[in-house]
């Protein structure tokens, strides 16, 4: 279930205090950070994996890694950004395992099945409907393209950070972002000539 605008309301100063306390060994402070951020982390994990069970595992693994590595958090980025990077890394590992296990097809050039409803210009103006359509289009993207566009365009992570966490080069991250944006645009706003290309 999606909840708009209901993520943690903790102000950065409060969060910084909790992080400082947690770094000095205060378990309750770390638990408080988990409570404040876990739905946000789960949301990212779900967007990256596209699967509830995987998202739960990734979320749990991300907090374990965060707990173990908290002393290494220097505080030069926001705690949430640091958590997103860990989550992206955990999701990348989980998706690699899943791909090996299920022999998933990860071909970038695979054509996305065309199941979209008729394009309605009035509905397109409706931001909520557009968000739903963007969510659906994201879920249909191949995992490797979806990961990059989610981390860059939804969570605003720098190219280099995305590349580091996904274990790819910065150039590869940029190429995937380019492809992902193009696919999403074609899917959401098909122009003349693109509809037939999709239908093939």
């Amino acid at each position, binding site marked *: 279930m999606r909840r708009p605008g209901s993520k943690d309301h903790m102000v950065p100063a409060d969060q910084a205090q909790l992080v400082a306390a947690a770094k000095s060994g205060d378990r309750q402070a770390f638990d408080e950070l988990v409570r404040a951020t876990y739905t946000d982390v789960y949301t990212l994990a779900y967007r990256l994996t596209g699967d509830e069970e995987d998202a739960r595992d990734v*979320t749990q693994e991300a907090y374990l890694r965060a707990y173990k590595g908290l002393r290494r958090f220097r505080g030069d980025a926001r705690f949430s950004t640091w958590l997103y990077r860990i989550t992206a890394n955990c999701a990348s590992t989980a998706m690699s395992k899943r791909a090996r296990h299920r022999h998933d097809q990860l071909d970038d050039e695979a054509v996305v099945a065309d199941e979209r409803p008729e394009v309605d210009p009035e509905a397109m103006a409706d*931001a909520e409907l557009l968000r739903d359509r963007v969510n659906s289009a994201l879920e249909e993207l191949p995992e490797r393209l979806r990961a990059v566009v989610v981390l860059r*365009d939804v969570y605003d992570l720098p190219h280099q950070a995305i590349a580091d966490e996904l274990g790819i080069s910065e150039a590869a991250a940029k190429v995937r972002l380019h492809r992902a*944006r193009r696919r*999403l645009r074609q899917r959401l706003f098909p122009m003349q000539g693109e509809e037939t290309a999709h239908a093939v």
Partner: protein
Amino acid sequence: MRCEDVSRALPEIVDGVAPADLALRRHVEGCLRCQAELVQYRKLLRTLHQLRTEVLEPAPGLLADILAAVEEAGERHALRSMLSGRRVAYAGAIAAATAAGAAGAVIWATRHRRLRAA
């Protein structure tokens, strides 16, 4: 510059991170098709950015599972610290005993030599 060239470049320059060259900008200014495509990309990026404020509700139990896993990890860490602390203490005791034994042996040997000399 042709519309196809602009279409290939737009996904990269739409967020303003990569610069758009002059030829491309001039083409877009005079081409309604490319303007429409640029507007679509901007709308897409705006909507993607708005997703940041939307959270998904995980199934019940996730928070409890995370806290339990962290607690378990904390206990394991504490146990390891305690055991490694004990190991250090044991090693220190053994080292001290060895040093005391060696010192005793040296003293005994010295006295023994003096007695024999006397």
